């Protein structure tokens, strides 16, 4: 009898709660847009935050609310943008692929003294004198960016962060993690970059690092499309204008303007630069002769 009693009471309680919940789910139903689910599916689902929203779901909601444009997802690229455009029923725009780039190759950086602190870039950069390494602007190499990268594209090579361009999705989570602000977004198709971000006086840059920009302006003078200029003691490339010809790399006396791949042998690099220099000479000659520049 007792068992039956307990069984009945619990059964009735369960049934009542079930009914209440069923009613409540109707009463408190929140309408969601039926486009939300497909858009979330079209996004990569890495929740990297590169779009500026809290995650893929938040970004999808923002697209539906009309608060965000469709091409914000760097990780999904044009593929995701196309699919979302199809779902939203609007014209798709081509998204140019961008990748992250570390503006430092200070392999020969010197330590000012022994560093025994936390293995963390933010902590290290707070040490008196702006960090334990001799360059106040260079990569500290403790790998905050490596930990921030959700795609396994960052590595520390010889003490300096390096981006694998093929794995990089351009979400720029690494840039947010870098206390030195060394990581920038550049178009995937561009090949030249300045591997220094030191705004210190040229004399200091030259002293602390072999790969420091000394603001000699040779690159600025040689560039015939006006894409490179020295701002605050360091060369900066305007990627809207750069045509990746490699002249600046040829002109740079310290070889800090490099090919993004950074992996080619010295011989290959020199050959490439020589070709660029040759092209440049021909262009100058052609310009003097008043003829239009033909293909090399």
């Amino acid at each position: 009898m007792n068992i039956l009693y307990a069984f009945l009471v619990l059964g009735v309680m369960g049934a009542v709660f079930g009914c209440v919940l069923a009613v409540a789910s109707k009463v408190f139903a929140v309408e969601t847009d039926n486009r939300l689910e497909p858009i979330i599916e079209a996004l990569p689902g890495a929740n990297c935050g590169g779009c500026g929203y809290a995650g893929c779901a938040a970004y999808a909601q923002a697209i539906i609310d009309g608060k965000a444009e469709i091409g914000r997802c760097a990780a999904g690229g044009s593929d995701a943008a196309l699919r979302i455009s199809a779902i939203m029923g609007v014209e798709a725009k081509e998204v140019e692929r961008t990748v992250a780039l570390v503006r430092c190759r200070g392999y020969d950086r010197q330590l000012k003294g022994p560093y025994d602190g936390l293995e963390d870039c933010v902590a290290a950069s707070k040490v008196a004198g702006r960090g334990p390494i001799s360059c106040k602007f260079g990569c500290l190499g403790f790998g905050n960016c490596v930990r921030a990268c959700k795609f396994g594209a960052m590595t520390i090579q010889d003490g300096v962060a390096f981006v694998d361009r093929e794995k990089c999705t351009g979400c720029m989570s690494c840039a947010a993690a870098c206390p030195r602000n060394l990581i920038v977004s550049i178009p995937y198709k561009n090949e030249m970059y300045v591997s220094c971000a030191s705004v210190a006086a040229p004399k200091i840059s030259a002293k602390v690092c072999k790969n420091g920009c000394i603001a000699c302006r040779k690159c600025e003078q040689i560039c015939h499309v006006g894409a490179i200029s020295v701002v605050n003691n360091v060369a900066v490339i305007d990627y809207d204008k750069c045509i990746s010809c490699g002249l600046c790399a040829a002109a740079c006396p310290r070889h800090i303007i490099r090919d993004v791949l950074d992996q080619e042998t010295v011989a290959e690099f020199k050959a490439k630069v020589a070709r660029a220099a040759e092209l440049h000479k021909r262009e100058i000659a052609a310009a003097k002769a008043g003829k239009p520049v033909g293909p090399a």
Partner: protein
Amino acid sequence: MSVTKLFSIALGAILVNNFILVQFLGICPFMGVSKKMDTALGMGVAVIFVMGIASAATWLINEYLLVRLGLQYMQTVAFILVIAALVQLVEMFLQKAVPALYQALGIYLPLITTNCAVLGVALLNVQNSYNFIESVVYGVTGGIGFLVAICLFASVRERVDNCECPKSFEGFPIALISAGLLALAFMGFSGLRVF
């Protein structure tokens, strides 16, 4: 019921008999969501909320249903049922009525449904024969105790994460050891009494 009694209940729940560090209830979220301070904070606030309403609801169910029908031995099962249904209901209500709070509590609310700290507070209320007000106070302050413990632990873990430790202790083992040390520290509160 006096203010002193309520105060001693509150003090007991927060420090002396802290749910996590002294009674070892709710260890699962304590280890699971204590990696970062902000998630720990979200979890703590959600636990305060759920423990408060769960204490109230289970007290009513116990007093007016189980005791009247002589079914006290069914408390554990009945309380699980009540808490699970209640959390679901509250979640739906919040999503509709207070979306901001729903967003803030986020995934933590459904996670707590089966948390043993919440079931524990309901059963302890009965064991200590608290009245309605005392039950609610015990629930809310038990939640505050949870918040204090998980936030302390999260800040400890954030620091430990950045330190070098022997390879075999990296990650979870060192977290368990820190939790043990934190519990040891809370043992210092035993004997603290309000007269």
